[in-house]
């Protein structure tokens, strides 16, 4: 879901249960608890994703223009190599993009009550396997939209937002690789981001359609082949404060040789974290608390997320090898006050 500020409201229906989980390589992904009680990452098991687009024109965006923008957004994800992602446009439909009707529908829908939500993705899942059976994306027609190549002042760029939502549709959760500032009139504005999966959109009129290394790592973590995993590595360790684990820390691995930043989270009480799908190389590690404006945009608010610590760097460089895991790292942080 892409919001105007970090307000996280799950829009789900049918058998969908949204949670956040981590797999072997621990990028933040959407998970569901399946019938045997285990938490699994949701994913498509077959491609192409056959999708429909609502046959509804909006001011400035016709249905065919929307379909073309959606097609470009799909191709942005499909350009990630070696994953086998694919999509197929089936046709236009009058079915609403939030119906749980067995179709994958993308389109505009009126949600004036969601005054901070630009778009949202919903799923119907197989409760045994976690497989995504179908998924819908609605773009909130309460906002003005544009498909202009360079954006249009005062309007949200359809393709930018759909790229984000398609990340969800493929199983990705939100990334915390972004910085925000409080606005005088309330709410938050994003200053910069290093992931298309950051939950807050750029200001209306901006174009932000490209994937970042963080996004590529995340989608690769879900769909990559064993050959990809053999060619990349991971970093695991713990974030601790006064000797105890920190839950909910955002850990960033930065490769100075490439400029790539890839994030992960400490997702358990012992502060354990993992950052995966890393190219071999030497990395800087940094831990920070989640955006205290709305940590629920990233992790379930039922978790005891620790926000009371200062950002800190790990005082060792960490080297990642092909197929290897750099482990045993303790990233110590101190309380804010």
């Amino acid at each position, binding site marked *: 879901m892409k919001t105007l500020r970090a307000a996280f409201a799950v829009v789900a229906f049918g058998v969908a249960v949204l949670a956040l989980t981590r797999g072997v390589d621990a990028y933040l992904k959407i998970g569901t608890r399946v019938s045997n009680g285990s938490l699994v990452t949701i994913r498509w098991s077959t491609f192409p994703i056959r999708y429909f687009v609502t046959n509804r024109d909006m001011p400035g965006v016709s249905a065919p223009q929307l379909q073309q923008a959606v097609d470009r957004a799909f191709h942005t994800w499909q350009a990630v190599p070696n994953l086998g992602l694919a999509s197929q446009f089936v046709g236009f439909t009058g079915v609403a993009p939030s119906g749980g009707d067995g179709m994958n529908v993308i389109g505009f829908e009126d949600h004036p009550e969601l005054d901070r939500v630009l778009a949202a993705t919903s799923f119907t899942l197989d409760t045994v396997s976690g497989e995504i059976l179908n998924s819908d994306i609605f773009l909130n027609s309460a906002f003005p939209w544009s498909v202009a190549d360079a954006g249009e002042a005062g309007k949200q760029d359809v393709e930018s937002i759909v790229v984000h939502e398609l990340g969800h549709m493929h199983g990705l959760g939100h990334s915390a*690789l*972004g*910085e925000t*500032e409080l606005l005088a009139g309330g709410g938050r*504005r*994003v*200053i*910069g*981001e*290093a992931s298309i999966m950051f939950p807050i959109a*750029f*200001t209306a*009129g*901006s174009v*932000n359609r*490209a994937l*970042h290394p963080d996004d590529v790592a995340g989608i690769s973590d879900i769909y990559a082949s064993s050959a990809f995993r053999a060619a990349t590595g991971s970093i695991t360790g713990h974030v601790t404060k006064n000797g105890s684990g920190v839950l909910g820390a955002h850990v*960033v691995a*930065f490769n*100075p*040789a490439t*400029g790539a*930043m890839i994030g992960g989270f400490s997702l358990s009480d012992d502060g354990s974290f993992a950052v995966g799908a890393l190219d*071999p190389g*030497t990395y*800087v*590690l*940094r831990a*920070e608390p989640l955006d205290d404006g709305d940590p629920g945009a990233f992790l379930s608010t039922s978790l005891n997320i620790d926000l009371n610590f*200062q*950002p*800190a*760097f*790990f*005082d*060792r*460089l*960490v*080297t*990642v*090898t*092909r197929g*290897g895991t*750099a482990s045993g790292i303790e990233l110590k942080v101190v309380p804010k006050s």
Partner: protein
Amino acid sequence: MSVRCCAASAGLVLLIALIASRPASAQAIEVGVALAFTGGYGAGSVAANETRNPSTGSTPLTLFQTDSRVLSAPGVNVHAGMSVTRRLFVFGDFQYSRPRLRTHLSADFEGAPDTNADTTVSSYLFGAGVEYRFTAGTWVPFVSGGAGQVREVPEGGEVLTSVDVHAGGGVRRALTHGRHPLGLRGEVLATFRSRGVGFDSSHHVLPSVSAGITWRF
């Protein structure tokens, strides 16, 4: 790079061939061991940048800044070679050192304290060179040059290879005379090294000095 590696390899082959064909009467084969000290070099300054929301500025948003350096380090050098003329000496050498790669982390957008993050690098130099001696007295000044391959392994990492080309000079002094004389050898080199463990793509020139003993037989 491959041309230079081949040149170094060819030098080693030449040395082996020369040793193998050494006249039995010549006291020209020498081995030596030395303590070496290799200077450090800047290994790149890179900002951790995020894409800026255009409504808040036009330059990338820097989350933090990194400035890296390979620190100077002591090492051990061994060489073996032979005189092919009175003035010309060819040799192969090996050097081992453990410099530290240090990255200074600063200017954090959210106020993380400045930190130095380090890792230790195991550095192995395999090279070959030639030395020209100006005189044949007790003190023997010389100039030298050579090339080789550097294999660097960051702690827990994989081997990174780079090319080392060096030139310099020094002085020798005989300590003993006789059938297997001992001597001292001191040398100062300027080393041109291609990218190794550093984070930049540029080449580096770094100084190195060494001093040790030699034994001829």
